[in-house]
């Protein structure tokens, strides 16, 4: 009589403990990877408030450069992709801490990573969010509600707008004018798998699929055709440092 009772409790205990682990963690062993974002203009390190010439020969002084990254995934050498639980980060040149992102990923041999530059449309229509997506971070349009996916602001003599400013606030989540862009980066050439250095080259903001001249369009404040053109450019923004 005693043994079956003990056995029963044993089973119960095992059920309870495995139940807890199943609910708390996926089965695959996990590891952490760190992404370091570096901001550049060609070969020059980006420095806020200091003038520099861009690829189209326009001298620009960048005051603000920030963007959202979200919806990460990792792909192993055999081509299996694991989509990570959705997280949102605001990378801000003015905040060096924000340029380092730590992700928990399955312990696989990673050959490429993917992420969304911007915020998916679901989060654009779900009321007020918290954390990186809190509208108080200034990356949100309140009159035509939705996130600014990426923001580049500063001044340039080429700009004919007030104070020679240029203002690129790129957003829009509706069909046909969605300014978020999927980014895929091959990481197989990097030495250390757990530390991935990503460069965002602002020259590609100005010259990617098309050319964006501050002399012609110093301001983008709206979703629509211009925002889509710049978004197509910034879909080429990133590369991996070997």
């Amino acid at each position, binding site marked *: 009589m005693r043994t079956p009772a003990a056995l029963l409790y*044993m089973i*119960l*205990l095992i059920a309870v403990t495995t139940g807890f682990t199943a609910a708390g963690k996926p089965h695959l062993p996990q590891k952490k990877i760190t992404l370091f974002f570096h901001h550049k203009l060609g070969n020059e390190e980006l420095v806020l408030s200091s003038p520099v010439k861009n690829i189209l020969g326009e001298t620009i002084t960048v005051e603000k450069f920030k963007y959202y990254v979200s919806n990460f995934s990792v792909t192993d050498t055999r081509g299996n992709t694991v989509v990570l639980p959705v997280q949102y980060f605001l990378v801000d040149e003015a905040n060096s801490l924000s340029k380092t992102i730590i992700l928990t990923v399955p312990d696989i041999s990673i050959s490429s990573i993917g992420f969304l530059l911007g915020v998916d449309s679901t989060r654009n*229509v779900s*009321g*007020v969010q918290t954390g990186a997506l809190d*509208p*108080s971070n200034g990356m949100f349009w309140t009159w035509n*509600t939705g996130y600014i996916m990426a923001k580049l602001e500063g001044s340039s003599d080429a700009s004919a707008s007030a104070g020679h400013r240029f203002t690129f606030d790129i957003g829009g989540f509706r069909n046909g004018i969605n300014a978020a862009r999927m980014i895929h980066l091959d990481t197989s050439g990097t030495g250390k798998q757990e530390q991935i250095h990503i460069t965002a080259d602002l020259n590609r903001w100005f010259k990617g699929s098309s050319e964006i001249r501050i002399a012609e369009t110093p301001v983008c404040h709206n979703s629509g055709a211009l925002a889509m053109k710049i978004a197509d450019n910034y879909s080429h923004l990133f590369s991996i440092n070997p």
Partner: protein
Amino acid sequence: MRLTKNIWVLFLIIITGAGWVGIDNRYFKPTPVKFQVPKGWPQPVYDFSKNPLTEEGILLGRKIFYDGRLSKDGDFSCGSCHQQFGAFNTYDHPLSHGFNNSLTTRNAPGLFNLAWQKEFMWDGGINHLDLQPLAPITAENEMAETIENVVNKLRSDKEYRKLFKAAFGDELINTQRVGRALSQFLLQLVSSNSKYDKVMRGEASFILPEQLGYEIFKKKCASCHSEPLFTDYSYRNTGIPIDPVLNDLGRMKITGNSSDSLKFRVPSLRNVALTFPYGHDGRFFSLISVFDHYRKNMVPNAVTDPLLKNRLPLSNFEVGQLTAFLYTLTDSVFIKDPRFAAPGAGNNGKPPRDIHP
């Protein structure tokens, strides 16, 4: 035997532990409030599951709604532009006054039955009620504040920390909670006690002109201003000519489609006797000028609504009956309801003599 005992001890520890987790939540017990859908109305579109209504949440929302600290200079609360005696419009103003002697570019509509509304503003630019407060808070010609400052002002107030705790379980104050609390209050603003409603419920009857007006209304107006909310929430071009100063293209500003040029949301006509002046920029001073727009002054163009391509012919007789009917949409219980008035303020539903801030 010893094994069984050990397991028992372990089991007990787990049970008591789990019990504590439960008790911790039991300290926080706001009073739930059930949202009442008036008889015969459609289900609301607001997702209450994300923001369950509670007495504490509603009370907090009301305090924020009437708090001038949401604006840069402390002068402009939500309630300064949305006045209860005008069914929460800016009473008798084509445009509203904002920070530093500025004016809004649109007419402040009455606020009621917002739980049934999916998008907000005349152009539908705001896609969630919780997000709505962010627009007036940050607009230079309204409250001229930053969201960050507003949240910090509330955080530094002991009274607010207490109220947020009562409503949400802890003292955390952030944009989301401010939005949710305001929504809880705004969702209470249900207007469903006009004479029209009483007639529909069989508690009253129309006099003859009202009845005739109702018949005309169902024929000529109800395809856009549809019952029971008196709007179908669509965006329509009514042949309203553009104002060269305001240059407001309406829905096109949001979608970027030229086919949406000069389209504005069909406004509800509930409480319409109180919400003058009319139109998205308040250009119509009276109902008569709205009728004259429909029958004479409108300028149909390529994107004007098919229903109005040939204007909307109305005889003087019809205008008289329609007016009688529209007056039955005034909800005098709503505009006097003390639950919606500024905390501590008396309310007799009458506009004060001088309503300028």
